[in-house]
């Protein structure tokens, strides 16, 4: 069928099948969805350019999963316009399903089927012939390092293996847009790292990814742009860097070899910052204006002043800082509190 043929074309050319001209691969405008009294999404807007990763970041219950379910045509929105690869998620839902892949926080595979049987079934449901679907399944099992488990029912797989199979199932039709709903929740660090690498490879090949996560390091590592969602609203968006800049610039931290030299150090570094440096337990901290050349300048100034340095580094604000300053609460505080979708 056409989707799979399209996908063998190099990434750049693939946009022919995607959104026309410069339309983003994903664009959501004013999306609202209520369940009874609960307003799960309240006028959410975001977009993702083709070939980039958009991270929806927020605590459990923020509305991330609802957003994914609307974008993948599982739920109808109450209000708002949703376009994915140039198709309307409501009006063109049937056509859209051929262009998207969905993998979730639960491995949605049949535990009593083998890995190959699962992938073959999905391929056939995309309209492929059995032999073609099976060949594609084998290819994916090889890519995802699951060949050894080819003939074993999925119930014998580890958590990481199931998640890889789930992701493989989402990739059967080589979709240009991939939705990953908390793909690494509950995975051990090693499997998590493996999955990150896989996602990065997919993006390098031109796939657009929408990823929901409650892990800030995950968004920081994978996402080109981030929309921070809390209580059904986008409370901030931008690149990880711009979000961090909103919390404040970078901090230069200098640990002195001799605390007696604190005042000399402060005097030497003061011209680098708009605010006065502060000293705490022999560590001098100052907010600097830019990043480039800061460390070299700091070392030179301290050396000129004859101050001996034990350690010196730039500390950037993390997304934890961002989340805390935006919402007033810590992002992962509700971890495991709500496991249902």
């Amino acid at each position, binding site marked *: 069928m056409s989707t799979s043929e399209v996908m063998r074309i190099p990434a750049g050319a693939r946009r022919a099948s995607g959104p026309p001209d410069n339309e983003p691969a994903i664009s959501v405008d004013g999306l609202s969805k209520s369940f009874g009294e609960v307003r799960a999404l309240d006028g959410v807007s975001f977009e993702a350019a083709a070939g980039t990763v958009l991270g929806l970041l927020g605590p459990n219950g923020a509305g991330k999963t609802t957003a994914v379910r609307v974008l993948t045509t599982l739920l109808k929105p109450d209000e708002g316009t949703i376009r994915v690869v140039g198709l309307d998620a409501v009006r063109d839902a049937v*056509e859209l399903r051929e262009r998207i*892949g969905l993998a979730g926080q639960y491995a949605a595979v049949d535990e009593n089927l083998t890995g190959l049987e699962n992938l073959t079934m999905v391929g056939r449901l995309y*309209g492929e012939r059995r032999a073609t679907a099976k060949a594609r399944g084998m290819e994916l099992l090889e890519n995802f390092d699951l060949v050894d488990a080819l003939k074993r029912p999925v119930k014998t797989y580890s958590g990481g293996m199931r998640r890889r199979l789930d992701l493989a199932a989402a990739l059967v039709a080589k979709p240009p847009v991939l939705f990953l709903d908390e793909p690494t929740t509950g995975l051990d660090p090693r499997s998590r790292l493996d999955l990150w690498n896989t996602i990065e490879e997919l993006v390098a090949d031109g796939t657009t990814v929408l990823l929901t996560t409650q892990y800030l390091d995950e968004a920081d590592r994978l996402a080109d742009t981030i929309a921070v969602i809390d209580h059904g609203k986008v409370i901030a968006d931008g690149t990880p860097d711009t979000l961090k800049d909103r919390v404040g610039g970078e901090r230069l931290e200098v640990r002195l070899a001799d605390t007696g030299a604190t005042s000399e150090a402060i005097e030497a570094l003061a011209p680098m910052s708009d605010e006065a440096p502060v000293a705490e337990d022999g560590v001098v901290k100052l907010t600097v204006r830019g990043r480039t050349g800061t460390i070299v300048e700091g070392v030179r100034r301290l050396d000129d002043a004859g101050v001996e340095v034990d350690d010196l580094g730039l500390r950037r604000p993390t997304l934890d800082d961002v989340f805390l300053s935006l919402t007033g609460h810590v992002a992962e505080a509700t971890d495991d509190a709500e496991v249902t979708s």
Partner: protein
Amino acid sequence: MSGLVSDTMIVAERNLVRLPRAPDLLLAFTVQPVMFVLLFVSVLGGAISTPGYDYVDFLIPGIIVQNIAFGGFVTALGLNEDLHKGLIDRFRSLPMARAAVLAGRTLADVVTNFLSVLVLLVTGLIIGFSFNANTGEVIGGIALLLLFGYAFSWVFALLGLIVSSPEAANSVGFIAVFPLTFVSSAFVPVESMPDALQWFAEVNPFTVTVDALRALWLGAPAGNSIWGAIVWSFVIIAIFAPLAVSRYRRAAGR
């Protein structure tokens, strides 16, 4: 439409392939009914008077009808599991015919029901059941059983989509269907029941279907039972299939 047919076959195949790999479930649908047959015939058989028939001849059609109605349990359990493990979400995100998930699921039941009818018939023949029928009537009886079982698959499909867990499906289904099978002509003649129960037992689809099967297999007077059984099956499908489909749409879109 061809998409619906092929997708239905793919889903049905999936449900059949996985079945032998859940041995506990398989046990419940083979060993358990055989055990019931043996217990009824040996323990109750001597105490129940069935004028005109040996109890084993009387019982086999009854217990096969009861058993096939419960064949849909696989659907209730399977759909409930699919719903809670996210598989329904996967299906719904695929460009497949939406009705195929339920149609394929219930179609798979027809195959397993056929096997369980064979198991029970062979058991019956071993312990002394004998047909008083020609080949056409034997086959007609099996076809009627499969139709009746298919109708109940839709009842169980609805159940599986409503309840919160497979355990709940188990107990609710049992409580709802088990009494129906007992207040019927399946195990004892209806005439032996109190008046109020008799009235209910006579219109009960189980009685109608069991009577139809006895007419086909034992040469008992058919009355309207054969047509009645066919009509009952279609009525059940007409009521429960749309309910299950609409519930599927809502449950999956939750």
